[in-house]
């Protein structure tokens, strides 16, 4: 029975893979089947994960005597007041809690890691041609994103240089995107060929 289910599952997986690729030719009901299967299973999986999280984090804490964890559970339940016509405003509070915590956590990391450490890495470095090019790149890109004044004269030239540096960055990203997307396709094709017994 398990073998039959496994085999059936493999065929469904192959059909879904080919159904998604069929979109390249035309959007058909086959693609819609794959699309809705993806959406439905993602939602189902997300709901199960959410329930597991509540059980493992909240319910287990309460069962160990931490009754203060009833507060976040009540806050979480308030989220669902969004479905009600009269009490929808209560759903703002759990969202505000997550926003506030997320913002604080993000900000403390952002200042140190993405601002100070990045500046330090640019400035506190042995002076070489490469490090000078990096410094010029950083400054010119920052000028490019400075929109308070019009980019005229010297500011305009520096901003244009920043744009050229950004084009190098985008070019490198685009070139690597070709590699990545093709690799993803290779992974799926390996799966199909393996399922059909054409690859070990």
């Amino acid at each position, binding site marked *: 029975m398990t073998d039959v289910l496994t085999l059936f599952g493999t065929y469904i997986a192959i059909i879904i893979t080919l159904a998604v690729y069929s979109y390249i030719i035309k959007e058909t009901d086959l693609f819609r089947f794959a699309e809705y299967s993806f959406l439905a299973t993602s939602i189902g999986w997300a709901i199960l994960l959410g329930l597991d999280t509540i059980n493992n984090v909240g319910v287990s804490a309460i069962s160990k005597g931490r009754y203060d964890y009833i507060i976040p559970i009540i806050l979480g339940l308030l989220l669902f007041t969004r479905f009600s016509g009269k009490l929808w405003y209560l759903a703002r509070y759990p969202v505000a809690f997550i926003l*506030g915590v997320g*913002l*604080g956590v993000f900000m403390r990391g952002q200042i140190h890691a993405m601002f100070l450490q990045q500046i330090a890495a640019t400035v506190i470095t042995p002076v070489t041609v490469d490090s000078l090019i990096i410094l010029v790149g950083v400054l010119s890109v920052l000028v490019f994103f400075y929109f308070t004044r019009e980019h005229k004269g010297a500011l305009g030239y520096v901003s244009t240089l920043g744009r050229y540096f950004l084009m190098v960055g985008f070019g490198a990203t685009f070139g690597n995107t070709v590699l990545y997307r093709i690799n993803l396709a290779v992974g*799926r094709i390996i799966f199909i060929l393996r399922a059909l017994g054409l690859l070990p």
Partner: protein
Amino acid sequence: MTSEIFKRKELVFALIAFLGLWLFLDYSVVEPGVQSVTADILKWATLLGGFMLIYGGLEALRYHSKVVYKKQRNWYWSAYFVAIVLVYVFSGLIQGSKGMIPQWLFNNMLDPASATMYSILAFYIISALYRTLRLRSIELAILSLVTIIVVAANDPIITIYVPQLTAVRDWFISVPNVGANRGFVIGAAIGAIFLGVRVFLGRERSLVR
């Protein structure tokens, strides 16, 4: 009267600002009491993250159920959607998320669909490379040439005959690209810091509907 108080956005902004500042300042405070409270706040937020996952799922279910109920366009696909979600969730509740049915649905529907959706872009990327990368202006020329150097350096056969390409690609990625990238990251960090300050001061009204 109480409901009028809770309807006020100022209370919401105050909560966001208080929690944001607490977490932000906790970084520099080594007082064990404060850090213990912070650890609990973080845990509460993780727990709320679980509720968010469920809320998002229920919102999608609600939308598609309405489509089925009102027999709107493509309602049969919405019916299929609702059926699969309910099968997934109920089988998961009975068997656990690692049960046979949830795992079968994950391995044979979610995984292949999700993986293939991202890989389909391979075809569009090649088409975009062919149709849009033209040496039309200085900017496009820089973009196109760097792209082609990176693509060529990622091609094993070309790098056998032109091994210097790898060094050229690596130089582009580790010098001018790092300059651009770092400027981008620092600029985005400045923007994020100012946005955070606006939120702490309660001046960012767009956060709450």
